[in-house]
């Protein structure tokens, strides 16, 4: 059995022109990047468009990546900058569509209900809070890594996570007491 290629090996192959290697990198990281952007943007179609742009930008500037082992955090950094650049106007235009499409979803499915509830709760947080929550609580990144990805001081990330989490717990009405 062959061991899976590391990101470093795939980046090296992609740099020398291998499409297959870059496609494997996309496969490997698409779920994490798309999930992050969905939580930050709140609109799945916008988020997936941004994720596509993120990977495309990454391919174009692959030569600028200094440490290939840090590929994942580098991708998240690109994704975050793209999400910040997404205009408010586009988001507003999408809000009506989102509300409408949410009404069309199958509300009997508990997972769908939880997804919608989470989207609505996240939309009440600031963009920085959403990003910090998406990385540290949902994505499992450390506060230090998140600070590097979001280009924020460590203290700000910790504060965004703590306040954002408290607000989510309050909005979603979940029991946060240890049993």
């Amino acid at each position, binding site marked *: 059995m062959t061991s899976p290629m590391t990101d470093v090996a795939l980046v090296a192959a992609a740099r020398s022109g291998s499409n297959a290697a870059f496609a494997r990198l996309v496969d490997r990281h698409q*779920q994490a990047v798309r*999930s992050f952007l969905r*939580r930050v943007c709140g609109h799945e179609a916008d988020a*997936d468009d941004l994720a*596509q742009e993120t990977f495309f930008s990454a*391919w174009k500037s692959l030569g600028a990546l200094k440490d290939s082992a840090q590929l994942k955090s580098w991708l998240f950094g690109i994704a975050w900058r793209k999400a910040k650049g997404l205009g408010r106007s586009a988001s507003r235009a999408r809000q009506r569509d989102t509300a409408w499409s949410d009404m069309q979803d199958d509300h009997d499915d508990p997972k769908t209900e*939880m997804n919608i509830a*989470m989207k609505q709760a996240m939309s009440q947080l600031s963009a920085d809070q959403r990003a910090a929550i998406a990385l540290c*609580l949902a994505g499992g990144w450390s506060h230090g890594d998140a600070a590097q990805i979001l280009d924020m001081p460590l203290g700000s990330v910790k504060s965004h996570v703590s306040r954002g989490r408290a607000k989510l717990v309050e909005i979603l009405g979940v029991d946060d007491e240890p*049993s």
Partner: protein
Amino acid sequence: MSHPDPLQAYFEASEAPASDPAFRVSVMADIARERLMRELVKRFAVTVVLTAAIVLFKPVLVILQAAFLDIPVEVYGALALVAVVALAGQYFITHTVRVRMPRLWLS
């Protein structure tokens, strides 16, 4: 023992699909389009340079053309014969015939 985060189930519900071939195809299509555009730009640039060179060196090329026309037909015949012998020799040694044409490596 730490209790599970009550928000975890909500985060899992908002997770993107683990595998999405359509997404990969969209990204790779963007890359293929970009590669094509870059290739077209390079080839266009080479065409412009070659055209400019031909126009610039036209007087020299006219002289060369006249010189080639002065060469007797037998010389061309001899060159063709040498080429056939060379290809036959290549086939005799390698059992294949491969003619390598000059190629412009642009990337």
